[in-house]
């Protein structure tokens, strides 16, 4: 069940990050849009985690090192461009991944078939905004470029095969690169040239190695639940 945990944690953690935008979005219409995406992801997370065990025990009682999400989704929101870059990278990955899962015979086929529709919309949202920020004003272009570059080194991990996810990882990788490159170019942005991995070989999110901000994130997320052991909510 490594696979359900990995995919479930991705959705859970990204949903949490997007939830942090509530009350802070650049315009009211975007409050609604970001919340929709967060809610879709949270719904996916609940289904996936429930395949493994009790959703709340898994979300609230695991230690940081037991989470299996990729590091990309735990990265702090930064400015709106940073969030959109994270959305672009992740939603493109998730759509390609779920498309493959939906047509295969994996235990995730049913879930993936539903989720792929949601995720296609997330990708569309990220692409529309990447175009507008990249090809908007000089300031937005610079911010978008910064976001795209800053998160690039977290993208390599997306294509590390996950045990139990029987898909063609190589085509996922090439499809992702093609799609992201096309959008960035159309948005007059430069596709980052740096490595898609950090330099540390200890592993990454899928092995339970996370970045520093993640610890604080789950401390906040888990604190109330943990303060009342055994209570129902």
């Amino acid at each position, binding site marked *: 069940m490594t696979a359900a945990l990995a995919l479930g944690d991705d959705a*859970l953690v990204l949903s*949490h990050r997007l*939830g*942090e935008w*509530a*009350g*802070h*979005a*650049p*315009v*009211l*219409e*975007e*409050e*609604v849009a970001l*919340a*929709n995406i*967060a*809610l879709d992801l*949270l*719904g996916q*997370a*609940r289904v996936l*985690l429930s395949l493994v065990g009790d*959703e*709340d025990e898994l*979300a*609230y009682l695991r230690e940081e090192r037991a989470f299996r999400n990729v590091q990309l989704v735990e990265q702090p929101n930064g*400015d*709106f461009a940073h969030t959109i870059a994270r959305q672009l990278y992740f939603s493109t990955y998730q759509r390609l991944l779920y498309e493959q899962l939906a047509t295969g015979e994996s235990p995730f086929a049913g879930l993936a078939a539903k989720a792929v529709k949601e995720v296609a919309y997330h990708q569309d949202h990220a692409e529309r905004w990447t*175009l*507008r*920020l990249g*090809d*908007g*004003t000089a*300031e*937005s272009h610079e*911010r978008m470029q910064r976001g795209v570059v800053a998160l690039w080194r977290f993208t390599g991990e997306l294509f590390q095969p996950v045990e139990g996810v029987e898909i063609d990882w190589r085509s996922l990788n090439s499809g992702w690169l093609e799609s992201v490159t096309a959008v960035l170019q159309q948005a007059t942005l430069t596709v980052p040239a740096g490595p898609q991995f950090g330099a540390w070989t200890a592993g990454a999110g899928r092995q339970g190695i996370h970045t520093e901000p993640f610890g604080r994130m789950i401390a*906040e*997320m888990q*604190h*109330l*639940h943990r303060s*009342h052991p*055994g*209570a*129902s*909510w």
Partner: protein
Amino acid sequence: MTAVTADQTAQAGAGRPEGADEALEAAFDRAVAADERIEPRDWMPDAYRASLVRQMAQHAHSEIIGMQPEANWISRAPSLRRKAILMAKVQDEAGHGLYLYSAAETLGTGREELLDKLHAGRQRYSSIFNYPTLTWADVGAIGWLVDGAAITNQVPLCRCSYGPYARAMVRICKEESFHQRQGYELLLTLSRGTPAQHEMAQDAVNRWWWPSLMMFGPPDDASAHSAQSMAWKIKRHSNDELRQRFVDICVPQAEALGLTLPDPDLRWNEERGQHDFGAIDWQEFQEVLKGNGPCNEQRLTQRRRAHEEGSWVRDAAVAYAEKHTAVRNGEATA
């Protein structure tokens, strides 16, 4: 909620012969008396227009400022189910703000202008949101009491004389009932939970009860705009009437929760067929209204910052649209 051509109404009024205004006013009064709706392009008295813009703006501002105290708990919601509910609720509030700004825009006042007034402290929002959410139970108390008071206030607005406002309120009231129920259910779970949870629920109710009663506004004899708004059917019931109705609704609900309302003078009055309740601290109300509540500064600061930090995003979208308008035209309908 169409915002079309409200400006033309003003132009149309400008060139009329003398005496025409009296006839228009008489027609307006007749329409209101006959419970017809006033629509954006109809003639209306300036004071009616001003009163509506003020009320709709204040209502819209309340929705978006009201997101903050609850959003404060999204990241700490203690179960995934509760987290989904809370996110959906805060999202609804953004949506309600949108509906209401749109309704206000039918009278020719843009959202940007209204937001500027909010940010400059020249327009108000409901004072209730200047109180802090200190524990998770506050999320439940807001749903039950604050949304409950809001619904009591808002249901009559679905029949408000101004069409776009009434239609926005129909949509909002439909969505609000989920808000109140989730809050009640949240408190019920806490009340029946561990002793610590029960205590948390009681503490939240203790803190939110009186401010909720203040949400209905000053007593009728001290309310500045009430009488005229009632005559125009913008308002349908007086502040005190609605407050009484709310108290009567809450008492049995509190009993079912197993929680007490923090008012030693609260008791059933057989003669009146209503509950008597203790004196409200109007001094506190006035102080919070003036800006001296626990969170006034914090709420406005966050709102201003979100708006300022978002300005480059909004500008970018406009710049992009200008570059690409020709290409996009014609793609919109299907």
